[in-house]
Structures are given as structure tokens and as C-alpha cells.
């Protein structure tokens, strides 16, 4: 028995290449797994940003308020964190929109009639939708 084991262990015909190939495969798979996981983690934020899309459907100039109707057309929920009117941050009612949902974003602003306003809506991930809107006369 001892002799047979010694024969196997010390037999140099074909065992080493198999073991080394196996080891190399394990190392390669492990390295790829680590690389994929790292890529996934590193680009996660980027993917979320790319999945985020929302549009402004309507802007309604009300007394002392600009109401902006937002529609989440992306693949991820969004949260509005800032609204700028003419490049100045304004207070607004908090708004979070789930997938395919939509709703009014009420921005407190005392607007003047017949003027053009640049409105910029910013999400928590930094996506922005900005455009010019003219107030009614």
C-alpha cells in the first residue's frame, strides 16, 4: 500500500500538468469574479445614472408658485433634490417618483407675467432637466 502511494506521488507522468491546469483555471475564474464584482460595484452609480430619465410634461404658472409636472420615464425611482429658477435655488415640495409615475412639483416662486424663466430640476443622482418657459401675460 505504501509503495503504491509512493508510486502515485512520485509518478511524474501527466499528473503535474493536470494539477497546474486546474489550479490555473481556479485562479483565472477567481480573478475574473473579483474583476466583475469590482466593475459592477465601481460602475453601479453610473448605471443608476444612466437608468434615470424623467421629463417635464407641463409647467403651470400659478399665483406665487410654479407647478412643474414631472414624469419618471426611466428604469429607477427618482428623488428631486433641487430646483433652480433662473439659476437660483428655490424651495419646493418634496417629490419622489417611482417607476412610470408622475406628479406635480410645486415650486414657491413669485413670477412676473410675460417673462421667460429657465427652470432646472435636479435629482439626487445629479440628473438634470432644464428648459425655458414663458409665463402667461
Amino acid at each position: 500500500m505504501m509503495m503504491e502511494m509512493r508510486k502515485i506521488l512520485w509518478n511524474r507522468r501527466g499528473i503535474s500538468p493536470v494539477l497546474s491546469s486546474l489550479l490555473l483555471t481556479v485562479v483565472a475564474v477567481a480573478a475574473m469574479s473579483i474583476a466583475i464584482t469590482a466593475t459592477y460595484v465601481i460602475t453601479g452609480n453610473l448605471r443608476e445614472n444612466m437608468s434615470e430619465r424623467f421629463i417635464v410634461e407641463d409647467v403651470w404658472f400659478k399665483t406665487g408658485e410654479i407647478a412643474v409636472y414631472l414624469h419618471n420615464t426611466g428604469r429607477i425611482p427618482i428623488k428631486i433634490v433641487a430646483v433652480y429658477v433662473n439659476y437660483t435655488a428655490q424651495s419646493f415640495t418634496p417629490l419622489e417618483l417611482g417607476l412610470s409615475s408622475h406628479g406635480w412639483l410645486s415650486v414657491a416662486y413669485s413670477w412676473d407675467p410675460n417673462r421667460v424663466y429657465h427652470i432646472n430640476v435636479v435629482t439626487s443622482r445629479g440628473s438634470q432637466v432644464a428648459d425655458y418657459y414663458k409665463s402667461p401675460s
Partner: protein
Amino acid sequence: MNQLDWEREKEHVNILLATRFSPWYVAQMEYTMETGKYMGGYFVHTQIDDGTAEQFIESYKDPPGKYLLGIYNDITIDLSSFPLSYAKSIEIQLKYSVNSTEDYWHLNAWNWKANKWSDLGSSKPAAAWTWLYFTVETTDLKKLVNEIDGRVRIKITDRDSPDATLTVLNVDFLAVRVTLNGSCFKFKNNGSLTAHLVALWVIDSGGNRGRYEVSLFINPGETITYWTSITWPSGSYVVKVVTERGNVSIYSGS
């Protein structure tokens, strides 16, 4: 500029039509005289509300021993554009004037099922030679509209009036239109990318905003007709359609 911006620039959707009514359909041939006589003008004068009229005059008929006038014409509704299945009613409008106030002027429509005239109502002028609009609406579509070719046969007649003088009738406008059971929209994609319409807004004359969710895909160059139960009050209105990419098209009507 990113991919979305590029796509937004390439997208171009137009609203060709947003309405609750068909256009006014008018007579396309000369009126048939049942009783009375032709005096002047042509049927084309009854196609536009412009003060230029076609004239008819009563003639004496015995029995019943009265001066009578009865003229009729066929007006064809485009059923391929406005199928009866989407129609709620038809509206018939007559603009006329007469030299005498003694007659009642009736609008009749031919009942294609029963093969007889249906009286839709009457109008009595308060003053001579004054233009008067007389509009009637009926929901009896199946009977009064020929389902094969969309014809509506309209007759103008004076009745039940033992008048002693010859009355002259000026017909400035006679037309029929369909009132839809909701509304009809036509969109055209003039862009080079397929557009996905996600929302429809109707802002009426009172400033009320109605938002309606839609999901319509339009290929480049394609025109689609969209029938819906959306209604809004009469008066001027603005319709907006929003695409998934955030582009907005606007149509205003009244």
C-alpha cells in the same frame, strides 16, 4: 450632447387634429325642388357662411291651397374618417333669411329605414330679411345617416302656415357635422425615430388641465388616428402631447 439629446433632436411629432366634431359637410349638388321655385344663386352659395345665398320662392299648391316651399339636398358625411360607431349625434345648421315672418321653417331629415321624412324642429323668424341660424341635433344616427355612403338628406320646408303671400327664402349655409362620442386626435411623426407618446394634455378655455395617459408608438412618417372618450367644454382649447423623450407638441383649436 448625449444619446438622449441626439434622439430628442431627431424626434418630431405633430398634432394634425384634435377635435370633438367632424368638419361641416355641405351640399355638393343643386337642391331638388319639391314645391316652390328656384329664384337665383347656386348651391355653392350655401356652402359657406358668407352672406351670399341661393334664393327660392314659394309656389301655390292646391290642395291644401297654400303657398308652399320644399327643397332638399343630400349631404355626405365622410364615414371613413368619422365612423358612426364613434359618433354621438349629428348637428344640422341652417342659416337663412326670409321676406316674411309668417311661416315656420322646418328642417327634416330622410329616415332611410322607414322611407319617410322625420321632422327635426322648426324656426320662426322674428324679422324679415334678417339672417337667422337654426341648428338642430339628433342622435337618430342609424336612421338618418345612410350607413352605406354616409348620406344625410335634408329638407327645408315651410308648413302649417296659411300664408297669403309668396315668401322668398335665402339659404346662405346648410351643413351637417358629426358630434363625436369623445374626441379624435391625429398625430404624425415627422421625425426619423419611432416616437412613443406617453401623455395627452387638454387645457380648456377655463384654464383647467386634464392629463390623460396614453401609450402610442408612431413610426417615422406615420400618421395615426386616436379615438378616445376624452371630452372638454366648448370654447377654445389647447392640446399637448408628450413623448417619452420629453418632446411636447401643441395644437390649439376652438
